């Protein structure tokens, strides 16, 4: 089938197989390898992308379901060499080690700060808690999100 969507701000059209997941189509048809797959069952959050600005799991959604919608992947965050403030906060606060969970954590953080620009520690844990990281022990992720909130606020002033 012909899929038409807005992908990282650009209108894209692609012939896709109707039974492929959004995760498969992003990685294989659009060659956007930033979105990771691990559990393929909605549990771990490695495949988190934004659908019309809201985080979802790309592994448990058919690409066909995103017809006419807007998808943001981690590749859509930076502008050229300029990292998104949330990416900068993760780099500066060692919010990643192997990086496998990072695209998901970044996109969740972008969506969280959009909804709630000054989240409390509890609100951050509640929002990001469903995404699994096997390396960092989460402390630096929390720090990164707090730093990101400050950077995003600064950027919007």
């Amino acid at each position: 089938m012909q899929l038409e969507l807005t992908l990282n701000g650009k209108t894209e059209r692609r012939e896709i197989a109707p039974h492929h997941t959004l995760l498969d189509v992003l990685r294989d048809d659009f060659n956007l390898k930033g979105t990771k797959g691990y559990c393929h069952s909605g549990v771990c959050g490695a495949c988190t992308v934004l659908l019309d600005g809201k985080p979802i799991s790309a592994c448990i959604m058919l690409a066909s379901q995103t017809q006419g919608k807007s998808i943001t992947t981690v590749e859509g965050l930076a502008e050229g060499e300029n990292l998104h403030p949330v990416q900068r906060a993760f780099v500066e606060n060692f919010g990643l080690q192997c990086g496998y969970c990072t695209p998901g954590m970044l996109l969740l953080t972008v969506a969280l700060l959009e909804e709630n620009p000054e989240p409390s520690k509890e609100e951050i844990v509640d929002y990001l808690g469903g995404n699994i990281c096997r390396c960092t022990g989460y402390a630096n992720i929390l720090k990164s999100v707090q730093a990101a909130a400050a950077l995003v606020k600064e950027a919007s002033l």
Partner: protein
Amino acid sequence: MTRFDYVRPSTVAEAVGLLEAHGDDALAIAGGTATVLLLQKRMLRPELVVDLGGLPGLTGVEQNGGGLRIGALTPIRAIERDAIVRGTHHLLAEAASQVAGVRVRNAATVGGSVCFGEPQTDLPPALLAMNATATIAGSQGSRDVPLEEFFLGPYETAREQGEVLTHLSVPTPVPGSGGCHVKFTMGSPENKPVANVSALVTVDASTRALADVRIVMGAVGGVPMLAHKANDTLKGERPSDALIAQAAVRASEEADPVEDLRGSVWYKRRIIKVLVERALRCAIERAN
């Protein structure tokens, strides 16, 4: 995943027509969070997937007569955040906020949660405690099914293959009511419940007695279950620690759990007893 064709009908009538014409070869999907996993594992092998996601008028919450009309395609996350739901139907918002994590709640729909008929869920017990009714459209028109008659067994509901759930009607609790949803999970709170309890109580303002009690137990039977004996124990009585403890014991005896990865029958009965006590105390406090 097996191959299938995909359609996205633009009216309920068209969706019903497709589902009826293709019978067991067709599968309806809404958010896809339950079904896409089963498709990947080849536990479902439809020839045609009918995506209900484009049907107009089935998303959102509105006030309607003595309650709320909740469109079947409303994402669970929208229920949790809706100002009206949080006000008059707080129990529903609370149960919604305990389903999985935000990623799943953004895609998962209320209708999908109800139609899937999975025993380990949070929203159906709360909807049942609030005495909701499902409206289902078929080729012969629409019919209303109270949720008490909707859940028939694990993954089995009163919805026929060709039918589409269009909305749920949830009465507004009378003044003096309070609700509470308590969930117990293994590991992180995003996991599916080992057991949960949704309780809705009404306290009589003058006598302080419990005018009405609806305790629903989830994940400890094939369907969400009203704890009839516990409810009868409490109705008309003024709540005391002893009475709450007695009702909790009755509820744990009524529960019909099965042993699985989440625990043994003995364990789940113990958990249910504690959850009923907690939910009752919390609901009564909120009612006052």
